[in-house]
């Protein structure tokens, strides 16, 4: 009997979770944030239901502030996989022109991401949503279950989570409840990169190192991705060899200086790193335990 490698075990677990959701829920959706975790999740979904396309749509909760390369990649992938891509932007956010500069990262995230996500889930009546969050990303994600229940108001109660013994998942919902499902919960960032490498999964080029125009903001390297990024008087962006370990709204996502422009180089860099990928996300540092607060309010 051959034993599975650790990546094969993770893959099998994720596929089982996805099949379980499709079997037990009425209207599932896969949240697609266009990052590397979403790329892996989408790849696993295609494997789980091959030869048919996955039996749920992709949902992108757009903030209008993602990197341009992410939008290009999203549209290209949606075409390639043949799945429905739903894009939702909070109309209130558009109306009030909510942005990370004028309103700050906390309000921007709350209105455009958290509220936007809740609106989209309500609008389409989804009762289960796959997300690509992993335990190793952040401490509040570490304690969240794979099947994470939300009230009708989309709130999460970290003190009231169902046990998941022997990987048996209780999928019964009360009326109005929904489930956030994390098939990659037990993966690490290194697992993700190794899997991308082994399976040759396409990812946004921003993950690879290249010379990009950046400015420094509170010690973070922020890419000047379009003309909306305000420059200070007399400020000149520098072209620096950077890449992104995580992708979000470009004004809130810090780049790292890196020479890693191939997958083996990225994996090599990963093996030596001592920091979490989410150190580059401004929104995680808004206040103490800010991720947990956001999650309780409905953020992924």
């Amino acid at each position, binding site marked *: 009997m051959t034993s599975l490698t650790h990546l094969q075990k993770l893959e099998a677990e994720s596929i089982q979770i996805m099949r379980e959701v499709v079997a037990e829920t009425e209207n599932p959706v896969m949240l697609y944030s266009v990052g590397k975790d979403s790329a892996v999740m989408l790849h696993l979904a295609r494997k789980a239901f091959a030869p048919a396309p996955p039996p749920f749509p992709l949902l992108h909760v757009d903030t209008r502030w993602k990197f341009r390369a992410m939008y290009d990649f999203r549209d290209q992938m949606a075409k390639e996989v043949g799945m429905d891509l739903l894009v939702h932007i909070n109309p209130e956010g558009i109306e009030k022109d909510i942005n990370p500069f004028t309103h700050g990262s906390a309000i921007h995230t709350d209105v455009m991401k958290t509220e936007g996500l809740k609106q989209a889930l309500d609008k389409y009546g989804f009762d289960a949503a796959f997300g690509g969050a992993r335990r190793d990303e952040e401490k509040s994600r570490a304690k969240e279950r794979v099947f994470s229940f939300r009230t009708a108001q989309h709130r999460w109660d970290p003190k009231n989570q169902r046990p998941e013994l022997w990987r048996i998942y209780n999928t019964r919902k009360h009326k109005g409840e929904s489930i956030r499902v994390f098939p990659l919960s037990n993966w690490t960032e290194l697992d993700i990169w190794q899997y991308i490498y082994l399976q040759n999964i396409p990812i946004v080029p921003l993950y690879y190192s290249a010379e990009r125009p950046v400015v420094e903001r509170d010690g973070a390297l922020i890419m000047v991705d379009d003309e909306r990024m305000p420059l200070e008087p007399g400020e000149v962006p520098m*072209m620096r060899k950077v890449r992104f370990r995580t992708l979000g709204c470009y004004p809130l996502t810090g780049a790292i200086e890196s020479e890693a422009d191939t997958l083996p180089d990225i994996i090599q860099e990963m093996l030596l790193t001592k920091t979490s990928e989410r150190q580059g996300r401004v929104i995680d540092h808004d206040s103490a335990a800010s991720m947990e607060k956001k999650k309780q309010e409905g953020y992924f």
Partner: protein
Amino acid sequence: MRLRLDGQTVAATATQTGLSAPTVSAAWKAFREGGWQAVPVRPRGRKVGQAQRLDGAAQQALCARLAEQPPAPEAAWSSEGVAEALKADGHKISPRAIDHWLEAHDLKPSPLLLEGLERHRSVTGRWYRHQAEPVLERVRRADGALWQGGVRVSQPGEALAGEPRRYQLYLHGKRGKLYSRCLAVPPRAEDYLVLFNRLLDQADGKPVVLIFRGAWFDRVQEIGGWLQEHPDFRLLPWPASS
């Protein structure tokens, strides 16, 4: 010798090995006359323990000077220029010691390799053929000045862990001579404009071309406006590597 045997020019061999062109020529001559045996191989530099070290005060004075604007019409500090200025401050430091200090602190970037670029089948090669070469040709015909330069962040090695990283604004002039300013914060538009104005002043009415790497001027109105007002100054941004 191996580079010369591979067909590299004396200048290219000197650039790649860090030796001077006369040293490469002399070694090549010796090799042709007497083979490998005849090539003089000597350890480079001073013997261990004989190096002139800069004390803390001298290093501080050097850093402070490098952060300032050099006296007009210099666009940035050469080793000789900064040694002269430090002498006036009471610090006797040779240009060579300053060169070594710059090298140890990763503040001695190499000039861009333009030789043979017109044959490269790359983004940089295309940029050179279509954008740089016609401008360079015009400036050469008008007997103008050709400069290279850039902005970068120093990466001091592990031996200097804890040393601050510096933003270096640098130029390479004739024969690759280095001029630089080292700042604690990224250079601002006014720093670039002083640099450009001084290069133009030095040219005595002749055109100037500056191939520049490491800055993104597209959205900087002050610099765009200045470039429009000074058609004799051509700024050629080095294409981004991907």
